């Protein structure tokens, strides 16, 4: 092959590899773990088709189990009317074929790698052996155990050491082990050589590679994150997709190339001797599931198994298991939708007196309860906005060179805003810095001792004298231990007063850029007039102990970090006179008497801490103190409400209360996080004020009357709504497919190289959410439903926004997300069907004829 031909082939391979990687989701490192729709890169397909694709590639079910639906029916969570409405809905939409006896296309089957095809024929365990080797090498590489050059990738590093690996010799014998490292100097060449050896044709390449990635969605997901999402300057070992596949295919080629039945390796080979495909990877956590049968159709291992009226029996009885699941899911979602609209359809609240303060919370569902209780505590107005407050920044504490990206992962930070000690605290700042440096030096010494070949044994012996009592204290007296640790830290490195320096001379944002972001934030949240004397920007974070998934409880809009720094930076910018002068030129006048203050809501304890209090002017101090007091009462009421939903709180022991859970290092469920999230409401607060939404709704403030072109609406739907959909889809798939798409049981987690967790001693990195975030014992606490988006805006504006954004067309037309809207409070809610048809919402049981309205 000439050089030019080789270039063509390699380029085509890279494009195919990227296409193959659509079947898996990127997996962020633990420190910035965020929720992501596991099927996001299949969103160009309608939801049900994407699920079907994932059934073939990943082996998932994609739908709630029959047991979950049966339980929902038994408890009235799904009614006969809901099921009838679900069937009617699709008749009305003209898609009866989606349900009526629809079966997968003939000839389709679960995708397999060459090793899986061999295992199927011979009963061997080659694929599992390759998975095990991959997990071992990936972990060793990322943990820095494999020696590597500064720019050396995973494949090159592995190739140098695999020839000494005893388990490679055991698997492939001595000659095979040597051969592993001889299949190509670079990963692309190795992949091409291996595909050739395995007789994989160009047409079969994408499914073959996709299945390779899908066998270990954790490690492959980490590689996808690194290759497609991480910043180019992201530090740490680089495990890229091409390296990952090269190593995997080398094993497969070497272990299979001397096969006695060569035809069994080729794609499309049908096993003759073994009739049924291998069983799904592991048992589901709850009830029966839908699996592929030997005809490659989806079937139920167990029907929903409830007694239904004759008409429903007649309609549902002829459906395939997948079609049945679709109907039940639609009914399950419809039931929630009806209850939500019943709650929202109430007389509009009269406007109260001018607010003493406006508090802007993150759209996170956990803010809803706190907002409701705060509004009940006095003349306070609350708003909802993405918790990064429109500031995509890189931020680091003043005493550290390390920085974090505070923005949704859909963005790259565009500026750096520093923290600085306030000038009057020079000596205090020096003392804190010295204390922190001492602590950091001690930690470095501890870590290097821990990793030393011999010193780790000495450390284990000597350290036990200290570690033992600490463990006892953490277990028996977590509050005391937490307080003692805090006091010790305060003695060693007493915190100096600091502030965020937004001056252009210190930050990388000019006055104009700051004004632009301020304008975007205020117009998108609908706060362009009527400013209260005090405006609080309240981010959120979650304080938990011994929790590898802690960042998944922090703010997703801040890239899985705590939201306090974003609130501080936004408040600093909005308090600058230069920003306000430019905003006034743009038509937004912030009174000189208005002060912006930052705060952070701890969602594990429901304590709200006001930040940078020392910067609050004297004439606002009393108002700020009053607000702090109201937030204290609101937080306490929210904690009581939340405690009623947490299991184990009935014991009334302090350690099982919300604050106790946050301090307890043995607590596997410090909070429910965003479990039971179900809807995203984009409307003025008056639409939902006073309604107990049970912390199930993302609330984004929006005033359509100030946004005739839909510019702010476009921003909300293309960013915060997408993030909310990711969260919703992550919870959905982790709940319905816990074996493959959840992180499993927390109690058996081990952290690997800081990038993820494995179950037990090794294996694939676990993706998704831990079972304790989804299930209460065997019962699903999260209700798996697709996100319902509720917007108060004219349909014409909505349709214009959708028409110019393919991502919205995919989500709404593809049934990933359901959209409901009304123009104003005098209008009826309408539901959007695929393609832009709107129908008046009619609750189940009251359905006569829906009035179709062209959007």
């Amino acid at each position, binding site marked *: 092959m000439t050089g*030019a031909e080789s*270039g*063509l082939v*390699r*380029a*085509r391979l*890279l*494009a*195919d590899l*990227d*296409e193959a990687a659509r079947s898996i989701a990127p997996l962020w490192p633990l420190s910035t773990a965020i929720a992501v729709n596991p099927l996001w890169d299949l969103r160009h397909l309608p939801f049900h088709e994407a699920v079907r694709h994932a059934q073939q590639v990943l082996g998932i079910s994609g739908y709630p189990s029959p047991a979950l639906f049966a339980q929902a029916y038994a408890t009235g969570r799904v009614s006969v009317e809901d099921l009838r409405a679900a069937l009617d809905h699709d008749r009305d939409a003209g898609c009866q074929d989606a349900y009526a006896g629809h079966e997968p296309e003939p000839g389709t089957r679960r995708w397999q790698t060459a090793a899986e095809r061999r295992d199927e024929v011979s009963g061997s365990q080659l694929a599992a052996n390759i998975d095990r080797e991959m997990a071992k090498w990936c972990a060793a590489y990322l943990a820095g155990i494999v020696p590597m050059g500064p720019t050396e990738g995973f494949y090159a590093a592995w190739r140098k050491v695999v020839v000494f690996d005893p388990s490679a010799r055991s698997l492939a014998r001595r000659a095979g082990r040597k051969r592993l490292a001889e299949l190509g100097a670079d990963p*692309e060449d190795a992949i091409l050589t291996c595909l050739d050896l395995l007789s994989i044709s160009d047409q079969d390449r994408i499914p073959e590679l996709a299945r390779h990635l899908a066998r270990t969605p954790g490690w492959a997901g980490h590689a996808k994150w690194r*290759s*497609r*999402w991480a910043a180019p300057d992201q530090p740490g070992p680089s495990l890229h997709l091409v390296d990952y596949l090269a190593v995997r295919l080398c094993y497969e080629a070497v272990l299979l190339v001397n096969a006695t039945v060569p035809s069994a390796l080729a794609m499309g080979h049908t096993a003759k001797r073994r009739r049924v495909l291998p069983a799904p990877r592991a048992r589901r956590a709850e009830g029966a599931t839908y699996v592929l049968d030997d005809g490659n159709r989806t079937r139920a291992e167990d029907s929903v198994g409830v007694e239904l009226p004759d008409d429903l029996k007649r309609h549902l009885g002829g459906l395939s298991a997948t079609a049945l699941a679709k109907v039940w899911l639609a009914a399950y979602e419809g039931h929630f939708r009806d209850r939500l609209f019943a709650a929202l359809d109430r007389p509009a609240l009269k406007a109260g007196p001018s607010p003493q303060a406006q508090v802007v919370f993150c759209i996170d569902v956990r803010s809803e309860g706190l907002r409701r209780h705060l509004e009940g505590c006095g003349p306070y107005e609350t708003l909802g906005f*993405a918790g990064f407050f*429109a500031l*995509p920044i890189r931020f680091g504490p003043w005493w550290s060179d390390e920085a974090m990206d505070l*923005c*949704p992962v*859909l*963005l*790259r930070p565009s500026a750096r805003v520093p923290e600085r000690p306030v000038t009057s605290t020079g000596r205090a700042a020096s003392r804190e810095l010295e204390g922190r440096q001492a602590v950091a030096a001690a930690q470095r010494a501890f870590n290097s001792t821990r990793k030393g070949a011999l010193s780790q044994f000495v450390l284990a012996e000597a350290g036990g004298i200290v570690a033992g009592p600490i463990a006892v204290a953490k277990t028996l007296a977590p509050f005391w231990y937490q307080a003692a640790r805090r006091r010790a830290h305060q003695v060693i490195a007493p915190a100096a007063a600091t502030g965020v320096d937004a001056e252009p001379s210190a930050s990388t944002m000019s006055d104009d850029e700051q004004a632009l972001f301020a304008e*975007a934030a205020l117009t998108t949240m609908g706060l362009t007039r009527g400013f209260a004397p005090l405006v609080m920007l309240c981010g959120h974070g979650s304080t938990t102990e011994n929790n590898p998934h802690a960042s998944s409880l922090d703010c997703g809009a801040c890239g899985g970090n705590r939201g306090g720094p974003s609130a501080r930076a936004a408040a600093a910018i909005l308090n600058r006179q230069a920003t306000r002068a430019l905003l006034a030129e743009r038509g937004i006048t912030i009174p000189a008497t208005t002060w912006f203050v930052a705060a952070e809501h701890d969602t594990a304890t429901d304590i709200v801490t006001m930040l940078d209090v020392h910067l609050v002017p004297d004439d606002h101090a009393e108002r700020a103190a009053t607000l702090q007091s109201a937030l204290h009462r609101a937080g306490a009421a929210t904690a009581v409400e939340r405690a009623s939903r947490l299991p184990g709180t009935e014991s009334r022991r302090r350690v099982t209360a919300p604050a106790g859970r946050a301090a307890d290092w043995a607590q596997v469920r410090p909070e429910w996080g965003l479990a039971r999230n179900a809807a995203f409401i984009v409307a003025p607060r008056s639409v939902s004020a006073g309604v107990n939404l049970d912390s199930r709704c993302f609330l984004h403030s929006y005033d359509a009357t100030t946004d005739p072109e839909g*510019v702010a609406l*476009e*921003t909300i739907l*293309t*960013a*915060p709504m*997408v993030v909310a959909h990711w969260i919703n889809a992550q919870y959905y798939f982790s709940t319905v497919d816990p074996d493959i798409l959840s992180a499993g049981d927390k109690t058996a987690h081990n952290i690997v190289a800081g990038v993820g967790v494995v179950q037990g001693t090794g294996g694939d990195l676990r993706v998704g959410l831990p079972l304790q975030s989804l299930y209460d014992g065997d019962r699903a606490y999260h209700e798996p439903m697709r996100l319902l988006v509720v917007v108060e805006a004219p349909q014409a504006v909505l349709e214009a926004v959708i*028409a*110019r*954004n*393919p*991502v919205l067309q995919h989500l709404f037309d593809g049934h990933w997300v359901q959209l409901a809207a009304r123009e104003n409070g005098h209008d009826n809610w309408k539901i959007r069907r695929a393609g832009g048809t709107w129908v008046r919402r009619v609750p189940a049981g009251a359905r006569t004829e829906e009035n179709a309205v062209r959007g």
Partner: protein
Amino acid sequence: MDETWELTQMTRIEVVISGEDVAVATDLFAEAGARGFTAVSNVSGLGHRGHHQGRLLFNQRDALTLLTVVLPADRAGALLEGLRSLLVNRSGVMLVSDTWVSRPEYFR
């Protein structure tokens, strides 16, 4: 082209793709040996999917990006093949043209 200008002929490839496909496109540039490229994010225009307004404030992944790369003609074939394969399943536009540069060593 006037020879007195002392310019060197190269191939210029421009692609307009979704922000989320930029990483794989730049991988292909690197594979083809390109020494650099230019990216303009959030571009607007009219295509077969309608108007793109280029005003997605907080979503760079779904905004359109214009990538421009210049490389010697003998290396362009591999890149074209990779981009063509990529665009089989993705939306986007690819434009190829001759161009001339004054400092060819920057592109080889």
